[in-house]
């Protein structure tokens, strides 16, 4: 009986923690969702401009758009800084791991988020750069720094392909691990782009946009991944709280039964004792 009481208490305090984490995550989720929405127009406009330039100049072939034979790869992997978020971290890390399954050599890694750093460090990947604790409040300048590293490696031929792995925020309850090609860049030919005068030249503008675009891509991915993390954690904690509630219920039932049983035995003892005296 004492044991059951102790367990009820411990489940109760765990429930308190999970409930608190659930509440924190849902408020952070709200903020993160807003940031993700604010970051999107910039990214969309940049992408549109890139596609317009690419559409207008069919012979435009900068180093950033031409596909090369892929020998070395760079993966930018975005995971969370903390656990307790259901399958959030493991899903995106597994996706990154399976993406290079057929390759002769392991890709180089830029790891964002403590969990990603730990994962790739343990498996002895070549980590080019790592960033922890930046996801909640990523600044455009930092995104630019990360993008510059990737661009420089791509330009110098150190890597022939840059992929980014993050978790897409579908809704508060669904998040999907995603892989996206960052470099070489894929542009969509637009049907209806109209003519545009570029100053000084389309190539110059294009080259100018590329770093901005990659930075914005990273920024958007990080912001989105962060929203996903909060969403995943909220769902996980909600389930944990529900489980704790169910457990407390069945434990208290057990406890009450045991209490009843002990009272009954006591009464029987007293009654049988009294009748023996008569």
């Amino acid at each position: 009986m004492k044991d059951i009481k102790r367990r009820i208490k411990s489940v109760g305090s765990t429930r308190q923690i999970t409930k608190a984490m659930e509440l924190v995550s849902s408020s952070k989720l709200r903020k993160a969702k807003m940031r993700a929405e604010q970051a999107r127009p910039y990214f969309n406009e940049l992408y549109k401009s890139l596609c317009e330039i690419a559409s207008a100049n069919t012979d435009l072939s900068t180093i950033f758009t031409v596909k090369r034979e892929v020998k070395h790869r760079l993966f930018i992997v975005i995971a969370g800084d903390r656990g307790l978020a259901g399958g959030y971290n493991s899903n995106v890390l597994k996706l990154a791991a399976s993406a290079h399954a057929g390759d002769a050599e392991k890709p180089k890694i830029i790891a964002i988020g403590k969990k990603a750093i730990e994962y790739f460090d343990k498996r002895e990947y070549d980590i080019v750069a790592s960033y922890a604790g930046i996801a909640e409040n990523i600044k455009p300048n930092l995104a630019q720094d990360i993008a510059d590293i990737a661009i420089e490696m791509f330009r110098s031929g150190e890597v022939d392909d840059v992929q980014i792995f993050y978790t897409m925020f579908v809704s508060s309850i669904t998040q999907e691990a995603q892989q996206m090609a960052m470099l070489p860049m894929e542009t969509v030919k637009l049907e209806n782009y109209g003519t545009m005068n570029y100053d000084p030249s389309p190539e110059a503008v294009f080259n100018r946009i590329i770093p901005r675009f990659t930075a914005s891509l990273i920024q958007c991915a990080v912001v989105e991944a962060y929203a996903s993390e909060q969403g995943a954690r909220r769902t996980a904690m909600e389930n944990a709280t529900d489980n704790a509630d169910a457990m407390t219920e069945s434990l208290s039932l057990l406890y009450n039964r045991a209490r009843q049983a002990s009272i009954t035995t006591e009464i029987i003892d007293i009654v049988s004792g009294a009748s023996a005296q008569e």
Partner: protein
Amino acid sequence: MTPFKLQIITPEKTVFDGETEQIVVRTTVGDVGILNGHEPYCAALGIGQMRVMMDGEFRHAATSGGIIKVSHEKTTILVQTCEWSDEIDVTRANAAKEAAEGRIKAAQSDNELRLAEAKLKHALNRIDTAGFGK
């Protein structure tokens, strides 16, 4: 002057979405003024000042790196940062300027020097622009 649609967007938020009569931006090849009915035009922007005219008065802003795109429907300015002159924190800009100057002196490599110079240019631009604040 006939007003036209203008959007100023940074990675963090949409800074401006409304109508203006005239804008002047600093592109990599020089200052360019845009009025209503301008031909489709696209250029890269460097670190510099931008002027946006509303109700006959110019509003100044410090911007850094991006592009401007003029189409028949609207003008879009995509920049890394954009701060209106009355929003600039001059003490912070001054501190950034001094820090950048210190780093220029202490720079070990070309890359560090280039970075510090860009920071200085950005800080000076913000200080200059703040001078137009009301």
